[in-house]
């Protein structure tokens, strides 16, 4: 699995570049690199459904971010650093990686998952639901409540965006509250 480690290293370098670059458009392109690398990693981990979804969703995210940064005045990151925040951030990074090394030893090792419920789903999917794609059978037949919850969250987000972007309600009052 040497390709997996090379791609993970590329993603970490891309994420650091996205966080530290001054020009916002270049930073958005670096976030795009992280997303595309993630899609290839999903394909290497034998999850083609997820790779397809991650690819198209990441394209939409980059489009929306470019809309927020292109041709906006005062948008570049030329501001000074926050020293207290940078120190807190570095301490958090070190703490997370150290705790990760300690705690992840007790997970099942990489490559041998405990498949207690999934074994039953894999064996009975063709007979119970008649679908060949086991992931689609899980999200739409065995665990359809979660899909209903996701549809609700997406609906709420769309309503939220349409509400925030309204022009009339703010200007007619005259002063902010």
């Amino acid at each position: 699995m040497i390709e997996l480690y090379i791609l993970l290293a590329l993603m970490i370098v891309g994420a650091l570049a996205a966080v530290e670059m001054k020009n916002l458009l270049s930073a958005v392109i670096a976030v795009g690199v992280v997303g595309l690398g993630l899609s290839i990693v999903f394909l290497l981990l034998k999850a083609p459904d997820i790779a397809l979804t991650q690819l198209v969703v990441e394209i939409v995210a980059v489009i929306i971010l470019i809309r927020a940064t292109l041709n906006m005045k005062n948008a570049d990151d030329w501001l000074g650093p926050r020293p207290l925040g940078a120190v807190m951030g570095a301490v958090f990074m070190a703490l997370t990686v150290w705790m990760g090394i300690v705690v992840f030893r007790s997970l099942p090792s990489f490559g041998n998952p405990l498949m207690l419920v999934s074994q039953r789903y894999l064996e009975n999917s063709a007979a119970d639901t008649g679908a060949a794609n086991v992931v689609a059978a899980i999200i739409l037949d065995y665990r359809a409540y979660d899909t209903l919850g996701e549809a609700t969250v997406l609906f709420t987000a769309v309503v939220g965006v349409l509400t925030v972007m309204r022009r009339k309600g703010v200007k007619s009052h005259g002063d902010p509250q």
Partner: protein
Amino acid sequence: MAIHSDEGGMTLVVKTVTRLTVGLIFLYGVYIVLNGHLSPGGGFAGGVIIALSFMNLVLAFGGKKAVEIVKKNAVTAMESIGAILFLGIALLGFTEGGFFRSFLSQGETFKLISGGTIPLSNIAICIKVGAGLFGIFLTLMVLMGSERKEK
């Protein structure tokens, strides 16, 4: 840079290529949704691809023309239709035995018409996700186009 301008849109080359390829992108999205129970894909990926094909049209031909053709109310109505369809499939399961029970026959595996209510749920999710994302895109891109000229 005339990417988000109010008149026109992009250059002639982009408009010609868009006219030729946007139908193929839409067809690909429909294929992924309909074969969601046989091969990787499903409602989410197909819905986002269909929304991307409409976004391609808006970006290539300019914002004003798109808002003339597609009213914002139509897009939000389509999203509500998708949500109601998904809930309707869930409630119709009451005829079989409970919430979300499958009320169509399972069929034989590996055929296009099989899998109970899974293809219908895929179509409902596709309409909902596609219309929702296109609604977000129209709101962010087109309806805020007038304050950015002072650069």
